[in-house]
């Protein structure tokens, strides 16, 4: 009976192949979202998924490309199931391709669970608000835009900027103070180069953490449409580890711009009304079904922290990919080409950067009571200093007021000493905040309006010269 069912669901009635899509006619009972197995005339196996199901017809997106498909001999078998991933605890340390097939020569997993990769929305009443400080050892993050467990915080970058170094450094150094529960890292690559993927793998390896890493790798020369699936495979794995095995998971998704381009390709093949720059109008919703899978759940021990990386075409932050991402994620780190040129690493421009969950993660008992004040004050003086810097170019240094001069000096020192650090330099939060005080102590006390007077008494001109981590 079952056999007959299977057989009857195999068709050779492909009537159209266009772009990443294929139309199969004469079908029956095809489910929306159903997984499809395709055999090319050349005997290759491919995978697809139903994008639209009509009474006698199904529109299928083919993940590995439609090259070699025809409207004659191509065989299509409807699996009767939606897209799933088989998971077990043994997945740690393994590598897969963008569709979740092992590429490390290891055996198939013996599944404990087979989960739909679409995931379901976390009920807002079930969430636990993220409030545990993650120390990344990077001053501009810990001090100015703090990361917390369960947050989704992307890196907005551009080609040639050191976003990979930064992400790898965060993955290596991230700890939660007073806890020794290990992080697992899930690494999902979409359309990045071999070198980039190797860089990450070597970095993970050098920190001796390979057995805590799961990777899903779709490289630049791998099929583009696969990228639709890759982050979902990664996040389903993350949910499994976080909420079944109480693990704290850091998910790195790179490069989300490639993901969005795959989305655009499908949308234009379907001749949908395009939104801005040809990206589909539903891209916000689609991205949210990825990013919103970060978080914590009340009563469960694990967590999912997401760090998507995306390159901004033309360094344009208003481009739909960073724009829609920023509307969903809980802040962003923005890398600046100007700082990079000046030799500042990590070249994080703190002004457009933001961590929306910072407030709950810092302060007394978490970082230090003066943290918020220090951060606000540094922001304010740095912002003013940057304004003065552009003013100086026009009016010259002489026309500056004393206040302007101090802020200008502050901005320079802030970039050179606070933001700048080594790719292996791991600063404690104490060191970061003391460094902040050291710079703020150059500003007249009365000007420090953003800091509570009692912290000024405690720290102003008292910070010991910041020693950096060994």
């Amino acid at each position, binding site marked *: 009976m079952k056999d007959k069912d299977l057989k009857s669901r195999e068709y050779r009635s492909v009537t159209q192949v266009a772009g990443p899509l294929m139309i199969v006619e004469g079908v029956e*009972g*095809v*489910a*929306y*979202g*159903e997984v499809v197995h395709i055999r090319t005339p050349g005997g290759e196996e491919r995978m697809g998924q139903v994008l*639209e*199901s*009509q*009474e006698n017809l199904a*529109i299928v997106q083919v993940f590995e490309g439609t090259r070699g498909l025809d409207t004659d001999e191509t065989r299509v078998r409807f699996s009767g199931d*939606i897209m799933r991933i088989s998971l077990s605890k043994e997945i740690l340390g393994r590598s897969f391709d963008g569709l979740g097939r092992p590429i490390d020569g290891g055996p198939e997993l013996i599944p404990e669970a087979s989960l739909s990769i*679409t*995931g*379901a*929305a*976390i*009920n*807002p*009443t*079930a*969430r*636990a*608000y*993220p409030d545990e400080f993650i120390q990344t050892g990077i001053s501009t993050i810990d001090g100015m835009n703090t990361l917390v467990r369960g947050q989704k915080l992307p890196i907005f970058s551009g080609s040639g900027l050191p976003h990979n170094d930064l992400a790898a450094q965060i993955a290596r150094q991230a700890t939660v103070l007073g806890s020794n529960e290990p992080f697992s890292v899930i690494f999902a690559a979409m359309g990045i180069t071999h070198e980039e993927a190797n860089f990450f793998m070597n970095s993970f390896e050098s920190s001796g953490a390979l057995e805590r890493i799961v990777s899903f790798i779709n490289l630049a020369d791998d099929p583009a449409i696969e990228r639709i699936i890759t982050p979902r495979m990664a996040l389903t794995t993350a949910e499994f580890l976080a*909420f079944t095995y109480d693990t704290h998971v850091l998910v790195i998704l790179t490069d989300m711009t490639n993901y969005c381009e795959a989305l655009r390709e499908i949308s234009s093949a379907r001749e949908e009304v395009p*939104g*801005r720059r040809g990206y589909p*109008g*539903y891209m*916000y*919703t689609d991205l*949210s*079904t990825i990013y*919103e899978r970060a*978080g914590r759940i009340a009563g469960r021990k694990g967590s999912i922290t997401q760090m998507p990386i995306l390159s901004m075409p033309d360094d344009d932050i*208003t*481009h739909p990919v960073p*724009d829609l991402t*920023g*509307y969903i994620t*809980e802040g962003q780190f923005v890398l600046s080409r100007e700082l990079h040129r000046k030799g500042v690493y990590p070249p994080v421009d703190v*002004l*457009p950067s*933001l961590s929306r*969950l910072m407030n709950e993660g810092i302060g007394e008992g978490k970082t230090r009571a003066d943290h*918020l004040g220090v951060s606000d004050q540094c*922001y*304010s003086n740095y*912002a*003013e200093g940057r304004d003065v810097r552009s*003013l100086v170019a026009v*009016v010259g240094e002489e*026309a*500056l*007021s004393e206040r*302007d001069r101090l802020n200008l000096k502050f901005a320079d020192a802030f970039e050179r000493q606070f933001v700048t650090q080594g790719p292996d330099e791991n600063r404690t939060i104490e060191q970061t905040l003391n460094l902040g005080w050291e710079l703020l102590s150059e500003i007249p006390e*009365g000007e420090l*309006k953003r800091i509570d*007077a009692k912290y000024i008494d405690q720290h102003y001109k008292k910070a010991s010269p910041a020693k950096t981590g060994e």
Partner: protein
Amino acid sequence: MTDYNKGKIKSVAGPLVIAKGMRGCEMYEVVRVGNEGLMGETIKLIEDLAYIQVYEDTTGLKPGEDVIRTGAPLSVELGPGIITNFYDGIQRPLLAIKEKSGDFIGRGIDVPSLDPEKKWDFRPIAKEGDELQGGDFLGEVDESKVIAHKIMVPPGKKGKVAEIKSGAFTVNEVIAVLDDNGDKVELTMKQKWPVRIGRPFKEKLDPKEPLLTGQRIYDTFFPIAKGGTAAIPGGFGTGKTVSQHQLAKWADSQVVVYVGCGERGNEMTEVLMTFPQLDDPNTGEKLMERSTLIANTSNMPVAAREASIYTGVTIAEYYRDMGYDVALMADSSSRWAEALREISGRLEEMPGEEGFPAYLGTKLADFYERAGRVLTAGSEKRMGSVSIIGAVSPPGGDFSEPVSQNTLRVVSSFWALDTNLADRRHFPAINWLTSYSLYLDFVRNWYDENIDKEFMVIRGDMMAILEKESELQEIVQLVGQDALPEADRALLEVARMIREDYLQQHAYHEVDSYCPKEKQFLMLKVIVKFYTEVKKAIELGISANRITGVKIKDEIARMKYEPNQQFSKRYEELIKSIESEFESLRNQ
């Protein structure tokens, strides 16, 4: 025989399902789709085909599965139990959903909006023999510590009270019977209302009172009236959500309906976490006691997101009908518009600007039109209001896009968030030069009578200083500050004081988060006093450098953090300190 109550799925694509055999089905009728009975709503009809937007994920649906009509349009259940509750976009209680499907939201979950088990203590107001009409009070129930929930005769029903009960009842039990010319009309504490139709009222009235928010930038500079509309547009990270949360916390309305429309899950969790903890300055009870939340986060089904703002505004109107001032926050109306666009795209409608349907403007106007101060339905003369504050999320932060522009056309307060200000952490990042309020003239009297006649005058002076500052800034950009006359340099200092010490307001500071109107007025007077002294000193030829070096500036900068209750004492001290420091400046 054909079964007109049932059709079959013809096709499925994302949230749109087309069903055949649906002749007779009405527009906006709710249907149950597929074997799991997913909830949907018809949005287009062609002969026997019904186009259905489905409020749940459609993965796994197949052509051939049943589509069952319910005969009713998308409606909300109105009755006690709404306040303090937490719903999804189609008014399903999220806690009840969690009980059924766990931490992740499952599909096909059918839960009643109002708890059918819970008994409420019903106290009659109407008496046997009273002639009642729609909107009249039958009785009341203590819904929360602060909301006396009036049980009203539903619109369209009327008659003489034949029977009225008293005591504990569920929302489904009959509590009164009307005799409508011989017809018996049984009434419970629950009524239903279709969300896409505004509830009736007698008359719309002009706005008169401000909706005070405890936020200086709005109350002092760009007020919204009770029953008014406001929009907060801004790019990501400029402060839309924090502003909306602040308004939901501190606005002096009696009921708050907060609609999280296509935004983050954690932001809803934050509301859930903080509202039951925070005290309402107007009642002394917890903020949750006057609030209801509707959360359809970005990753929840897009069609239910489209419905969520209607669910919200219908609930708001219902409490308005009881005579309450209700404030509705919608964060973000752009996500609603995008849901509309997505569905429209699937219907293959002719796209307008940026792919939005041509009717976007009409729909937005219809929504904001449901705000207002009204003379409510019912025989008694009763006033109530719904104020609507919508966040707008323009792509790239560029306000020239269709949702911002169409919203601008219909709202009367415009609070423009500015990425530049947000980047330098000037919060709330509302641009004081481009924002406006058309309610100023309506509420001026109220300010005169309830705060002080001087208030609006000072406001005008402050605004003038800020405008002058922006002119001067342009000159400074070209030639530097040194080139300005002394008086102008002093003015820049005062402008900075207004911006930093008055307009900036820290949402997370325990004191500064809420600033009562009395304190706003005194803070303004401190700045005015400072400015007056500055002008005097300039006239006496004292240099701007010396003036801007006064110590009192630092104290003024901290006045916003002074506890609200004792502020009038602090005010006196500040005024004295200003006088004495300037006096010694003059004597030097």
